[in-house]
């Protein structure tokens, strides 16, 4: 049950990406993200996507792990693409469609809408795909049928620059998601946390206590599965007291959620207190200098990665400024 909940969970494999120092990965990832936003040329973006692909393949992580991350953003991707195509009105018109809404068409569209809602009750999977299917059927009907009385008509114009910018945004988002998935898939949470702490060290000059912050982050990460388990237990305990989380009216649902939330708060506070006592009993003093079991050390591969990233980023920036 918990396995499918978190995407981008650490995937154990042996590759140079896994062996890199977490600090290197963090900083280079950040640099690459900046690069992705600086690039405006479509071909350069495609090349960047190619580079990301090379990184993914060389990390020896199965590619469907990355698709999981992209799938979660699928809705966002589809909508940004769609809005860019429809509303970006720069450049030349590539295609123009005129839609006629007639009495007959209106009936068909409403029928399709009702059919979709009714279908949604029975078919739980493929909701996005069925929605798109119905949407296109509705559009097609409006485009091709105009036999009865016209109510109003509107047109959809697609411009070449709109298409291009939609395409660019698509590539950018996919590259960004893949890169950040690559980071979390190839780095253990504890290493990632160590890396973050070390990268964020300069913040102490701004009076930010980095070690405490990173401890908080790692504890929060550590307790996610524990709290999910507890929540499941409470859900079941309340279910045997007649709570039905799936059905019921809205007003009932609120009390039902309260019956989950309050015990969860109680448990979380209790756990926090126990943990704090256990940590203090083992000599943890907040803000004090702590020694580490795994000291982070840069290797040759790290240096090479830094150099490559720096070269690529400077190239991008220089090209951008010159052109």
């Amino acid at each position, binding site marked *: 049950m918990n396995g499918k909940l978190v995407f981008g969970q650490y995937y154990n494999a042996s590759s140079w990406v896994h062996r890199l120092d977490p600090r290197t990965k963090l900083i280079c990832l950040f640099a690459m993200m900046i690069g992705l936003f600086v690039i405006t040329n479509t071909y350069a973006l495609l090349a960047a996507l190619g580079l990301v692909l090379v990184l993914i393949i060389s990390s020896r992580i199965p590619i469907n792990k990355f698709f999981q991350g992209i799938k979660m953003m699928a809705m966002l991707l589809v909508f940004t693409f769609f809005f860019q195509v429809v509303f970006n009105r720069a450049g030349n018109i590539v295609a123009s469609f005129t839609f006629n809404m007639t009495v007959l068409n209106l009936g068909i569209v409403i029928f399709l809408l009702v059919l979709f809602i009714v279908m949604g009750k029975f078919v739980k999977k493929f909701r996005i795909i069925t929605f798109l299917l119905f949407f296109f059927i509705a559009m097609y009907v409006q485009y091709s049928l105009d036999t009865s009385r016209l109510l109003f008509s509107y047109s959809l114009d697609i411009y070449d620059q709109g298409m291009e910018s939609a395409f660019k945004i698509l590539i950018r988002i996919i590259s960004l998601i893949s890169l950040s998935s690559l980071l979390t898939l190839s780095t253990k949470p504890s290493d990632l946390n160590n890396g973050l702490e070390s990268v964020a060290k300069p913040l102490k000059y701004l009076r930010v206590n980095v070690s405490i912050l990173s401890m908080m982050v790692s504890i929060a990460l550590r307790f996610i599965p524990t709290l999910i388990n507890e929540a499941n237990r*409470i859900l*079941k305990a309340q279910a*045997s*007291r*007649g*709570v*039905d989380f799936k059905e019921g009216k809205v007003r009932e649902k609120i009390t039902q959620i*309260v019956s989950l939330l*309050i*015990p969860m708060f109680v448990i979380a506070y209790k756990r926090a207190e126990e943990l704090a006592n256990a940590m203090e009993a083992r000599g943890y003093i907040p803000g004090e200098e702590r020694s580490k079991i795994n000291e982070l050390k840069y290797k040759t591969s790290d240096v090479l990665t830094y150099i490559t990233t720096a070269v690529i980023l400077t190239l991008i920036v220089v090209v951008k400024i010159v052109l």
Partner: protein
Amino acid sequence: MGIKLSKVKFAYYVPRSKKQPIYYQLENINLNIKPEGEFIGIVGHTGSGKSTLVQLLNALLLPTDGEVNIFNNIITRKAKIKLKPIRKKVGLVFQFPEYQIFEETVLKDIMFGPKNFGAEDPEKVAREAAETMGISDLLERSPFTLSGGQMRKVAIAGILASKPEVLIFDEPTAGLDPLAKSEFLTFIQKVNAELNKTIIIITHDMDVISEYTKRVLVLKQGKLMYDGSKEDLFKNKEIIEDCDLDYPEIVKIMRELKSRLNIDLDIYKYNIDDAFREIQNTVGVKK
């Protein structure tokens, strides 16, 4: 009527592709539980599937394969039926039930179950349940100011108030002191005897099994190894050894006495009084 499990298999995770093997938490369970008067103990090692089995009896989990019949509601993997009426009939008290408490006052919390199940007068049944648990004086207090033992009583009253026909307890005595433990078990025994309700109790404690239960289910790695009376279980050496079970303290003492004193004792006695009488009879105490 009652609860009937036929060829029930259960897996927590069923892989999508059929090539991957399914790891079953429970395998081929056949079981018949009468709706009244039974007092069943479930024993087995950690991970043997006790809690899973108990959740199947209350339709919190649905069987992966096979069929569970709870008061003539047939539950299979795909059957779509209302589960709420089933949960009203079979009350399940989880381990550490005090965590399920959430209302402002004890009374409100006990009323929560009956209200959900649509009882006519939730307050009345809640007060009754509180009285059976002996917590009538706490009704207006906030449950979060109570001690652990009191909270547990409140939580159990919350289940009792829904008036289930079968009551299931998942390790109800964990973390209780010996006095509270025997008090609690005697209370359950009373419910079993006087209200004629079926009680099912998960426990690790063989003394609880020997002193209170009538029928025992032994689970090992998801399989039902034994289903029968406790008397037969303790005489069945193979099952006890195979499932790594312990003998109850009384039986151990009686056996030790028998072998050391070399006398003809009936070692299978299940409470202190009986054992004492047996010793008295055999040794012959002079007064």
